[in-house]
């Protein structure tokens, strides 16, 4: 479904991604982890073209992301993305947040969009908040709405960029539970996270990055069992309390 081949990216002279290659098959849940500055957020943003890249290829469902002829907007509408800072639109109500993508991008009617948006809002347990504004919700609630917003577009895959990193500890579980539910339903997911508990529960594969390179790319069992590199072992030791 998603394929990255030898992706490299520079910010001016500074190389942030070096020769990154990995694959995500349909239904896979791939967790990308690593220390700060390893390039994991940058990597996931290249998948839907939010960040350009200078070398390599990325294909999503057969569509080449780096090709200048590709209609990026059309591709992005098929991939859902959830951000670390939630990024709900503060000037719109929750319901409008859920429907704006559907009506403006997918061309659905307002009724259709409302029905779908509210269905996913109920799925994440926040139907009662539909007329509130993002500023009135807690972080955990905002992130769940953000997930519902992405799901309302009926995406073929979901990208998560550190979805729980900006949350208070007591709200992390409510968001992780939604994500676990999604994974168990067979959604194709790429998740940048530090939550190794989540990874242990639902990931198929773990990708470990350091300094712009992919150091480990193996199954969950292998990663938590016998990791090959010292760097990955150090990282795991530091973050598993």
């Amino acid at each position, binding site marked *: 479904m998603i394929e990255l081949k030898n992706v490299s990216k520079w910010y001016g002279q500074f190389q942030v991604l070096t020769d990154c290659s990995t694959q995500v098959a349909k239904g896979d849940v791939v967790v990308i982890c690593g220390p700060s500055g390893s390039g994991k957020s940058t990597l996931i*943003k290249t998948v839907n073209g939010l960040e350009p890249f200078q070398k390599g290829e990325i294909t999503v469902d057969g569509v080449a992301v780096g090709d200048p002829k590709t209609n990026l*907007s*059309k591709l992005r509408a098929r991939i859902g993305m959830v951000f670390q*800072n939630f990024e709900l*639109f503060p000037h719109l109500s929750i319901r409008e947040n859920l429907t704006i*993508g559907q009506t403006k*991008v997918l061309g659905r009617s307002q009724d259709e969009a409302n029905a779908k948006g509210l269905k996913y809002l109920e799925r994440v347990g926040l139907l009662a908040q539909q007329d509130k*504004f993002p*500023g009135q919700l807690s972080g955990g609630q905002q992130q769940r709405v953000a997930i519902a917003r992405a799901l309302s577009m009926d995406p073929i895959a979901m990208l998560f960029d550190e979805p729980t990193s900006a949350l208070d500890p007591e709200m992390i579980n409510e968001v992780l539970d939604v994500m676990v539910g999604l994974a168990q339903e067979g959604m194709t997911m790429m998740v940048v996270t530090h939550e190794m508990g989540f990874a242990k529960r639902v990931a198929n594969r773990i990708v470990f990055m350091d300094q712009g390179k992919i150091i480990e790319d193996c199954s969950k069992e292998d990663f938590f069992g016998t990791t090959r590199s010292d760097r990955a072992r150090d990282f795991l030791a530091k973050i598993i309390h």
Partner: protein
Amino acid sequence: MLSNFDFEVISRSWVYLFQTGMVFTLKLTALSMLGGILLGTLLAMMRLSSIKAVSLFASGYVNLIRSVPLVLVIFWFYFLVPYIAAWVIGADEPVKVGAFSSALITFIMFEAAYYCEIMRSGIQSIPRGQVWAGQALGMNYFQTMSNIVLPQAFRNMIPVLLTQTIVLFQDVSLVYVLSIPDFVGAASKIAQRDGRLIEMYVFVAVVYFIMCFALSVLVKHLQKRVAIIR
């Protein structure tokens, strides 16, 4: 000293002052504000464009207009607009443009440079993540701008836009140099005809104060209503 003052002159010329003068001032201010904000927002988007030619044109325009005193711009446009209009529509002779139209074009083009900088700072203050979120949903540049960025930028900048509009309201009085009867011009005409300069100019100052203050209060209420809950 105050016994010499003839405040009768104000009540006698009330109709002329307000129906001719103030109406002109308000019309010119309102239309220039609308046109200026529209053009200014467009210029701000151009300035932030990644296409070099577009952004250079916009910043050149803004820097040029902001370097020149308004009174000079008013004179230039008064003489140039008929020729420019003729060039635009392909006429042989300079188009006869009325005083109001000339002043309107002048003020829109002048204020747009200032509104541009206000809107530009508003647009740049919207976090990048908001743009990414819009793009991640599949929105193109124009959809992201019109649905996500501009609504927020505009609401955030209302206090600053108001300040500029108050300045505009006062700047309109400069059409005096073209002998166009705005509120100050009308008052000045009465003052010179009746020889009552102090009374008229004090009255003008009081009216301006009341109106600017009222406008500030009005916009404070407006801001509370459209403020984005954060």
